[in-house]
């Protein structure tokens, strides 16, 4: 079965600094990969997703993620963080057979300081 690891529980960055959130997955083939964001007291919102093709995918709110098969990674990046980006971020994976629901990582909480 597939699994997801987000090594960083909590990250603090300064406003305007760049951001990279790490995600590693375990799956035999190329999975479907997702990043979701959860603002305090809210449900999850999709930031971006990767199914196939170009390994660099663009998402909403200026986020991007790069799929690296050799590293089994799908790291999320943003060149310049805004205070409103403070939230919890979840990486998720699904089998490319299309038959199983998403499996989520434990999340990374992002704090943004002035």
């Amino acid at each position, binding site marked *: 079965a597939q699994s997801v690891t987000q090594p960083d529980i909590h990250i603090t960055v300064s406003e305007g600094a760049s951001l990279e959130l790490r995600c590693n997955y375990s799956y035999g083939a190329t999975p479907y990969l997702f990043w979701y964001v959860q603002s305090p007291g809210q*449900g*999850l919102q*999709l930031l971006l997703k990767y199914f196939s093709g170009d390994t660099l995918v663009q998402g909403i709110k200026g986020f991007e993620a790069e799929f690296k098969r050799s590293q089994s990674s799908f790291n999320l990046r943003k060149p310049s963080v805004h205070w409103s980006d403070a939230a919890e971020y979840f990486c998720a994976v699904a089998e490319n057979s299309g*038959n*199983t*629901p998403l499996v989520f990582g434990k999340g990374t909480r992002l704090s943004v300081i002035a």
Partner: protein
Amino acid sequence: NAGVTQTPKFRILKIGQSMTLQCTQDMNHNYMYWYRQDPGMGLKLIYYSVGAGITDKGEVPNGYNVSRSTTEDFPLRLELAAPSQTSVYFCASSFDVSNTEAFFGQGTRLTVV
């Protein structure tokens, strides 16, 4: 645009009580899911449904039951509430099971005392 609607938003239960968490979606999605979220643990799948009349267990189904009599509704039932069921519960729906966006409700915060 309602999307996925969960009720109630908050609830406190006593040990042994029962309750139903309601979930409705208006996007005509076949697939619906219940997750629970505990601090530092991410989201764990409780049950999911691939269509009306069809449900399947997820990773943590014990202590819960579901039904799917219509495409729109996917209620989650707790029969004998236990403190271990204190959590935030999220309902979600999607067009497909794994390769399209899942839309989430705003959650139900349940405390069992």
